[in-house]
């Protein structure tokens, strides 16, 4: 591939051409990029979980002088030579990052920064020295700064694919132990696991993934491929195997897309493209993932807000009924909860925007908890609504009693807490509160109001369905 296709206005034609998969070279690049994205994302997951996210960045930078030194020594750029050079200098960097904090007063983050910048500077010096040499094969070397997938040759991709597959097999083989150490290192040590062995192995796998990524992503941006996929996958999965698979998928997709871009514009560095695509996938995950995504959270919050609003209005109906002269001085079992009230009456007791109240009333009617009275333009509780209102009021007042009786809280301050907890208590928790209260089935709350008894209510079985 030469520079002659660097400018071609017909991107669409190239796009189609790429996906016809007729160009064997392009297919190789496609496979290589996908494999790299997959393996780097999976192994990066462990670095992320061990809170060693920046280690990948330092290791990638530390690989640069290895590649350059190998070229200076052997005046050749065969893939295996470059690979071995990069792995050894990465490991040297890793050793330095590990040794410095243990033997000096330097903390790990500073050790990482010192190692990263020193190795990178050394690599750049060697690179400029090489540019001045009259040697064949030096032209591709500067591409490893930002990566250029299109510049890769088939034998580069053979090596990349083999290494990526080895990394994946090793992760599958040692998954249980890696997970154990990442979750609870001291425990892993206590059961006699050979921690140094697994740590060196994990570091080696990270180094290998970083090194094979140099030609596609480049030294500078490699860390993003290790970390962004797993950060995105955290929004989709709860369990580690699923999370690593999602991360691998995201990494592979970004690899495929960058191979595509690199085919359409071969002179363009692939690394930035890959990282931008990963970031887009991350943002999509962050926004749209079910349960943990931003939109899903907003929807849950909206649902909760409606739920609270519904329950507050039901409770207001209970209070309105209770305060009505008809029910004055009646035993609570005899309270008539079927009286009708208009919007103004509700608003007089509970502060709520009128529009929101109308919506809530309609919603409660749809749920069969309220019914509209046609003669007086008001609303009244249905049998089911009465039960719900009683249950809520019971929870509210039991909690108030509990706070004042058991925790000696001020009677005037408990309402505020009860107002929130009433929406969250389950039947079982309500029972626990009843049991904790000194007098079983306390009849009055601290304000002297009756606590309604919704237990054994005839409607209960129906609601339970």
């Amino acid at each position, binding site marked *: 591939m030469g520079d002659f296709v660097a400018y071609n206005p017909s991107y669409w034609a190239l796009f189609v051409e790429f996906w016809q998969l007729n160009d064997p070279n392009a297919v190789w690049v496609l496979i290589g990029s996908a494999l790299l994205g997959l393996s780097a994302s999976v192994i990066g997951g462990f670095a992320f*979980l061990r809170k060693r996210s920046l280690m990948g960045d330092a290791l990638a930078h530390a690989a640069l002088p290895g590649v350059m030194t190998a070229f200076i020594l052997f005046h050749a750029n065969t893939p295996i030579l470059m690979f071995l050079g990069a792995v050894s200098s990465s490991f040297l960097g890793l050793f330095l990052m590990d040794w410095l904090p243990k033997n000096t007063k330097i903390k790990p983050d500073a050790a990482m920064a010192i190692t990263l910048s020193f190795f990178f500077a050394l690599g750049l010096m060697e690179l400029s020295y090489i540019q001045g040499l009259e040697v064949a094969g030096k032209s591709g070397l500067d591409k490893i700064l930002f990566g250029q997938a299109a510049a890769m040759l088939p034998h580069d991709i053979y090596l990349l694919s083999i290494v990526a597959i080895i990394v994946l097999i090793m992760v599958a*083989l*040692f998954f*249980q*132990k890696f*997970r*154990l150490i*990442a*979750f*609870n290192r*001291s*425990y*892993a*040590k*206590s*059961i*006699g*696991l*050979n921690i140094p062995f697994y740590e060196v192995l994990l570091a080696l796998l990270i180094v290998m993934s970083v090194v094979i990524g140099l030609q596609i992503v480049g030294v500078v941006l490699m860390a993003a491929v290790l970390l962004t996929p797993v950060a995105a996958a*955290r929004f989709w*999965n*709860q*369990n*580690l195997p699923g*999370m690593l698979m999602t991360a691998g998928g995201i990494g592979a997709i970004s690899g495929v897309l960058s191979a595509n871009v690199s085919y359409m514009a071969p002179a363009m560095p692939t690394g930035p493209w890959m990282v931008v695509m990963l970031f887009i996938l991350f943002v999509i995950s962050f926004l749209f993932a079910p349960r943990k995504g931003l939109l899903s959270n907003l929807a849950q919050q909206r649902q909760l807000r409606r739920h609270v609003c519904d329950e507050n209005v039901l409770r207001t109906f209970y209070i309105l009924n209770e305060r009505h002269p008809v029910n004055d001085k009646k035993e609570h079992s005899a309270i008539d909860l079927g009286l009708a009230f208009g919007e103004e009456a509700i608003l007089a007791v509970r502060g709520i925007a009128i529009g929101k109240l109308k919506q809530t009333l309609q919603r409660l009617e749809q749920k069969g908890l309220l019914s509209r009275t046609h003669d007086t333009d008001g609303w009244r509780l249905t049998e089911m609504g009465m039960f719900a209102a009683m249950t809520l009021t019971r929870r509210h007042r039991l909690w108030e009693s509990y706070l004042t009786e058991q925790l000696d809280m001020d009677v005037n301050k408990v309402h505020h807490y009860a107002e929130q907890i009433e929406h969250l208590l389950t039947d079982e928790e309500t029972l626990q509160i009843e049991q904790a209260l000194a007098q079983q089935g306390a009849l009055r709350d601290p304000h002297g109001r009756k606590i309604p008894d919704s237990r054994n209510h005839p409607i209960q079985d129906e609601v339970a369905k």
Partner: protein
Amino acid sequence: MKAIQNSPLIVDQLSMRYQYKPVLTDVSFQIPEGKTIAVVGPNGAGKSTLLKGIMGLEPTMSGSIKFFGQPLDQKRLAVAYVPQREESDWDFPINVMDVVLMGRHGQLKFWQRPSAQDILIAEQALEQVSMLDFKSRQINQLSGGQQQRVFLARALAQKASLYLMDEPFAGVDVTTEKAIVELFETLKTQNKTIVCVHHDLNTVSEYFDWVLLINARLIAAGPVNEVLTPENLNKTYGGRLSLLNEMTEKLYRSNIDRVHDNG
């Protein structure tokens, strides 16, 4: 100190430091088999450090530790350690069953996965702490007490004879506290030994048979009714041993052990 027959744990002249600060100096004790033993002392007395030193999780300055008469590496499978709950990442993407199965990994070769037999053992362990219903639950959805019971189940799954627990009662609910005490009883009937860092002096005599009083050194060790005297407690919780600590720190800072002969 008179020798105890078949002691599951003998600590002899153990000293530990953090950088140059001495944490424990010259701790020696033996414990009896089939008992519950509390490690008690004020904050910063070195209780957790003692457990970590015994398990080889933190470097020791000097001293020897024998498990059933042998070094740890030969008795690994007989010893189970329950780390402090706060030291773990409870946001880690893993479920309860997988955590408990970790207890089986001491017996698995490096490539092996837990077998059906291991899963059965893990389920029994969960049952013992009444957490079987939670086996598919993600650990970030557990309460503090439930987290503690999962850690205990993991140790039980190791099928060990000696259990070293770091503050299992810290910040747990009543249900969990009861579950732990019942578990102690069950383990004792199987002649298993439990060493447990404990912070609540009020419950020591209720939950434990033996007690080790620690404050930078061993104050006393023995049956609760003999050792838990006002005098010993005063020594444990009374003033710090500033002179001992200062001089030991001076010793460590000088690195004199590198130049002084052992004569």
